[in-house]
């Protein structure tokens, strides 16, 4: 079970979210932004410094590398477990472990915890977005934090139940 990719899936999602956060930080901290809006010209000039450029390009490269490894992992999982295939593009999260009633029970407990978290974090996020004097980037970052935390909650719950023990 430790090697079951569906259990590792939340960790991958956390990784993707963190890389998105790094990318967001890079694109939102340009050294110069110039907006030209005249009758004859409409343009936006954004100039990034060396560090910001490194963060942006680095995060894109990192994201693409992770995406490739992730895709290969899915392919490997599908080869090893032909009866529990993970579709590459699916709305239903593949980390659900529901091959029998015991595993469904674990998924249900973990999902309930995530749902409980969402019921209060989303309204709190909405209030934050409405009244926060901070720039919009902080709202987007807050959304990423909520997305990250839901996977942390899910993963911790599943891991607590699926610790390998001697028979």
């Amino acid at each position, binding site marked *: *079970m430790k090697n079951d990719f569906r259990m590792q899936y939340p960790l991958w999602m956390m990784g993707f979210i963190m890389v998105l956060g790094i990318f967001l930080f890079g694109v939102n901290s340009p050294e110069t932004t110039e907006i030209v809006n005249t009758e004859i010209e409409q343009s936006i000039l954004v100039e990034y410094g060396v560090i910001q450029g490194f963060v942006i390009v680095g995060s894109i490269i990192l994201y693409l590398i992770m995406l490739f490894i992730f895709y290969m992992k899915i392919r490997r999982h599908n080869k090893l477990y032909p009866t529990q295939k993970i579709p590459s593009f699916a709305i239903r999260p593949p980390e659900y472990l529901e*091959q*029998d*009633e*015991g*595993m469904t*029970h*674990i998924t249900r407990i973990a999902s309930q915890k995530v749902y409980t978290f969402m019921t209060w974090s989303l309204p709190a996020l909405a209030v934050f977005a409405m009244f926060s004097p901070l720039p919009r980037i902080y709202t987007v970052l807050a959304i990423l934090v909520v997305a990250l935390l839901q996977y942390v909650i899910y993963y911790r719950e599943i891991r607590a*139940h*699926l610790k390998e*023990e001697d*028979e």
Partner: protein
Amino acid sequence: MLKNRVKELRARYGFTQSDLGKQVDVTRQTIAFIEKGEFSPSITLALKLAKALQTNINDLFWLEEDGGHEK
């Protein structure tokens, strides 16, 4: 709370959790959850377990508030 003798009877017959899981068509983890009392199986699974462990369901599962199990 539902108590059980799955672990005891499984050991008596020399089955591993995986062996028993295969017999009743569930994962090893599900057998472990049942043994630890983390999960109450459905009637269908309970009956399958009783059959695999060659006992009857009342000897295999009982409610804690019933004052313990008499073998």
